[in-house]
């Protein structure tokens, strides 16, 4: 195991598996968020949030989720360092943009920003609801109202929107790359995987970007 995990392909395999797990989480997270559009004063979303917190299974998966994020980030940092060391003297002229896209080369930059977003996002919603107990209790604002208040702030809504844009580009490259790393691609599958990756990225973008847009412009959450 240690030989495999310390190899370059082993590290990439860990990146791919944790990345795909995080993709599954995104789908689940999007489903939960879409309950905000139920037009029931936020009842479905509040009920959903309550269920998540009180399910042992979900709480266990939550631990795995945090571990997956940490492993994905730590491996990325390690690989980036190793890859940078593989070229100690850089080219003075390198037209690398003629042979590859900026987003495929800079998964570290988009990933770092997404990590920053996750930290801010957790601070905004996870910490008050789950740790500080300042949201969702008797006499306090509920989770649906917390979402609405957060996304009506132009700075946070803009930051959220921009982060989702970067997430989409990260997914566009990462999704198909994960299958390539796991050896699940060949010349017949590759075009479909590329399309599936782009499709998934677009879906996640449209889904998640809708929240800052609709809430900021007052097109959602009117009954909260």
């Amino acid at each position, binding site marked *: *195991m240690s030989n495999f995990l310390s190899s370059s*392909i082993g590290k*990439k395999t860990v990146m791919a598996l944790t990345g795909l797990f995080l993709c599954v989480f995104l789908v689940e997270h999007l489903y939960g968020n879409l309950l905000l559009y139920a037009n029931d004063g936020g009842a479905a979303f509040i009920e959903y949030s309550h269920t998540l917190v009180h399910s042992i299974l979900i709480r266990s998966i939550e631990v795995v989720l945090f571990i997956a994020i940490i492993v994905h980030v730590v491996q990325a940092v390690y690989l980036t360092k190793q890859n940078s060391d593989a*070229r100690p003297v850089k*080219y*003075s002229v390198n037209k*690398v943009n003629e042979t590859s896209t900026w987003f495929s080369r800079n998964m570290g930059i988009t990933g770092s920003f997404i990590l920053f977003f996750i930290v801010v996002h957790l601070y905004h919603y996870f910490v008050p609801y789950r740790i500080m107990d300042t949201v969702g209790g008797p006499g306090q604002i509920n989770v649906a109202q917390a979402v609405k208040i957060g996304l009506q702030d132009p700075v946070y809504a803009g930051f959220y929107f921009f982060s989702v844009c970067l997430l989409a580009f990260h997914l566009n490259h990462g999704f198909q790359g994960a299958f*390539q790393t*796991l050896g699940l691609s060949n010349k017949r599958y590759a075009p479909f995987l590329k399309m599936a990756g782009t499709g998934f990225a677009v879906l996640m973008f449209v889904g998640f970007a809708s929240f800052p847009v609709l809430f900021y412009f007052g097109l959602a959450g009117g009954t909260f």
Partner: protein
Amino acid sequence: MNLTLKVWRQKNSKEAGNFSTYQVNDITPDMSFLELFDVLNERLIAKGEEPVAFDHDCREGICGMCSMFINGRAHGPWQGTTTCQLHMRAFNDGDTIVVEPWRAAGFPVLKDLVVDRSAFDRVIAAGGFVSANTGNAQDANCLPVPKPDADDAFAAAACIGCGACVAACKNSSAMLFVSAKVSQLALLPQGQVERESRALNMVKQMDEEGFGSCTLTGSCEAACPKEISLENIARLNREYLMANLKKGLF
């Protein structure tokens, strides 16, 4: 054609190098890029200066010896072309052309534009061979090989080991090279005996040589003079994962 060349000059692997600028006049568009350097070197020798060291051998695009990073591209601007097959008609009169050696920790510069690519030889020595007796031509013809496998193996075997994939990759990854060599043997019956050990040992050696990992940017495929497909990298990942699973991860 009159050209300005900015060429990387480095005395040896120990000393730091820098760019020297040369004005090279009266170049014909029909010359190859290496012939441009032949002309430059003759003029340098005539002036009593040290000629530019560069690798070359067959000058027919099949040996994989030439290795120049020209104007920001491995083997220059033409697709599927080695430096020796790049012709001066790819450039315009008055152009400034920047020429650097392959830059990678695994390919240390020996002198000027010459790099040490023996890391690739060590990767091959680690497993890029078959020890089964493959017999003579008629014996090989007796072994049934499905046509798609034969085609894929042949396409992978087209790799000439020039190192353009490493030079072009932002991570100096040798995955395209290693995957081509693993693929050509994994697809054929003669390669089955050492299939797992080959994947394990070649990847281990690749990592030890200091090459980076694959981030699927596709630069290697775009730079490869033999247009080796990224599909091979997926196959190498698969071979390596399966070999580890068979060996036992724990």
